[in-house]
């Protein structure tokens, strides 16, 4: 088990290194610095700004500076006096934002990540409760009206993009019924609609997975045994079938979380929620390379660790699976 985690960690380090390196050099290779604006700057000012962000260093030196806590300084490569502009990715410091001059990338992430995380949690909760209940229901009532209706709904949920769902929700619940605020962030009421719109496709997918998993489990011998010994149908479902039927859902949680993180790019924009996703999109159009790189790295770390966690949880639920094989 420890071997598994170590191996995962090693691959993770390699992955992350590739992402950081490739995007760093791409970023630096782009013509036009981040400070090229509408008007050309005075030469001296430009030189000063570049010096401040160490853009005048040789590219490899900048790379080491970005990567980690190496002791670089103006004169030499290593063995400087320790006055670095920022710590480097290895210390969890993503450096200054190129567009929001007074903020570091870490400041922006620290402000916006809790917002995105709470939105993501709401979405995941929605997706799980809705997906599991409808999935179990349609497995129990297989082939009947409920099942057909729920499956159609699930297919529609997978097929429709989340911003379209969001549009319908806003028309219905904000303008027709006036139950929720249209946009913004602050209270739980602000998160209901965006959370639902964000979670809907995943709820649909989870419902599908649960249905398939439950159907497979329900035809097993041990379920028949449970029925035969006179256990109440509700208990058979809740106690015996659900555990086995949930397995596919657990393994889907990793990709689902990644998808929710991605989907939040759009949803945050529609509902004007100041989360990391909207910052990322803005950074891409603003050419704020450090910010967009920082968020990319952060999300890579998040997705990877969540996936590992899910794989880990999977073995606890299903003793037939061994980590070494994966």
């Amino acid at each position, binding site marked *: 088990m420890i071997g598994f985690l170590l191996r995962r960690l090693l*691959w*993770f380090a*390699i*992955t992350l290194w*590739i*992402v950081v390196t490739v*995007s760093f050099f*791409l*970023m630096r290779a*782009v*013509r*036009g610095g981040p400070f090229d604006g509408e008007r050309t700057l005075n030469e001296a000012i430009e030189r000063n700004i570049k010096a401040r962000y160490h853009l005048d260093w040789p590219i490899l030196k900048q790379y080491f500076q970005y990567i980690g806590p190496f002791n670089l300084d103006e004169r030499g490569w290593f063995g400087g006096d320790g006055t670095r502009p920022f710590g480097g990715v290895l210390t969890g410091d993503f450096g200054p934002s190129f567009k929001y001059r007074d903020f570091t990338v870490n400041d922006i992430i620290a402000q916006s990540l809790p917002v995105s995380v709470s939105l993501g949690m709401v979405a995941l909760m929605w997706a799980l409760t809705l997906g599991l209940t409808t999935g179990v229901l349609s497995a129990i009532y297989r082939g009947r009206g409920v099942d057909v209706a729920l499956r159609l709904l699930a*297919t*529609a949920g*997978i*097929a*429709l*993009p989340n*911003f*379209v769902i*969001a*549009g*319908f929700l*806003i*028309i219905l619940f*904000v*303008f027709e019924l006036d139950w929720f605020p*249209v946009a913004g962030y602050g209270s739980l009421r602000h998160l209901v609609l965006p959370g639902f719109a964000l979670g809907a496709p995943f709820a649909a997918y989870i419902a599908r997975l649960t249905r398939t998993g439950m159907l497979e489990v329900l035809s097993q011998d041990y379920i028949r045994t449970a029925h035969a010994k006179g256990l109440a149908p509700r208990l058979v479902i809740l106690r015996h079938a659900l555990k086995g039927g949930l397995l596919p859902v657990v393994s889907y949680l990793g990709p689902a979380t*990644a998808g929710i*993180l*991605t989907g939040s*790019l*759009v949803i945050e*924009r*529609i509902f004007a929620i100041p989360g990391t996703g909207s910052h*990322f*999109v803005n950074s*891409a*159009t603003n*050419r704020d390379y450090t910010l*967009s*790189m920082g*968020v*990319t790295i952060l*999300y*890579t770390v998040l*997705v*990877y660790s969540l*996936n590992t966690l899910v794989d880990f949880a999977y073995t606890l639920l299903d003793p037939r699976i061994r980590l070494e094989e994966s």
Partner: protein
Amino acid sequence: MAERWDLKGRDLELLLSEAETYKGESLWQDAWRRLRRNRAAFACLVFLALFALGSLLAPALPLPSPVTLTLDDEYRPPAVDFSALLVPGFRRDYWELGWIDERMVDLRVAVFGDWQTAPWLGTDGKGRDLLSRIVWGSRTSILVALAATLCSLIIGVSYGAMAGFLGGRIDNVMMRIVDILYSIPFIFVVIFLITIVNEYRTELEDQFGINRETVFYVVIGAIYWLTMARVVRGQVLSLRNSEFVEAARVVGASTARIVFIHLVPNVLSVVIVYLTLTIPAVMLFEAFLSFLGLGIEPPKVSWGLLAVDGTEGINPIKLDWWLVVFPALAMGLTLLALNVLGDGLRDALDPKLRGKD
């Protein structure tokens, strides 16, 4: 035992002639038969075929231009006036069309002249006809989906088949690379890449003749090949040592024959199923990127852009519902049909279900 091998002369001919009367059914005939029996999937196939035809012939249809601004006619709600289905007023302004599209517009002008459809589905904030924009938008969306899927098909199938066929250490390394790529949240990387490509768009266009959309297709295709590669590799790996391949080898078939006559058709069914599920995913992705302002750019239209217009039209003062509902309906129906068709194809091509029902 001995008698059975003792067939000679008339007996043998009798047996052979009897065997002739049994007609074998290929995988595809069987699948086609079963797909036709699946009403929902078949209806979706017909719907998609008609839809694709309509969108392909869009320039020749009597639609208004999707970009003509009629500023005195903005935000007109949908209405079908049966006494005036067609109205005069067509103006030939489009963005730079390809040669074939230009000829189709010529044809349209020759046949319908000045006449165009009235705004059945209403108009948007700049007085542009919504129906026309949806149809022209479908061209972009379908084109993106097909081109990107083709990209993923070429990369994925060749990569996967190579890994599966070579096997051993090479396979191990190749699949490890896929694993690494899998763990990167690609959308972020893609957005990052597109930002950088935008920086060089004029050079790319002038020097290499590559426009932004081509880059867009390739980039999207380049992320969707991963699953394809895994699927194909798994299939090839499991089939490589199967009995029918061995049998073919015993009979003396060459490697090329084994690969192309025996292995590829078996992999193809899985690939086709995966394709029908990739296309909607790519369409969604295009809509997603266009929504963020990183995909298709005006004056061209795509469904993602229409959805942006729609959500911008949502405001409490005046609800322009048609701008949200109709593009969503078009996109939702297409994606729904593709998903249902994909599921139906999966059932139809599943060898485990072959010859049943």
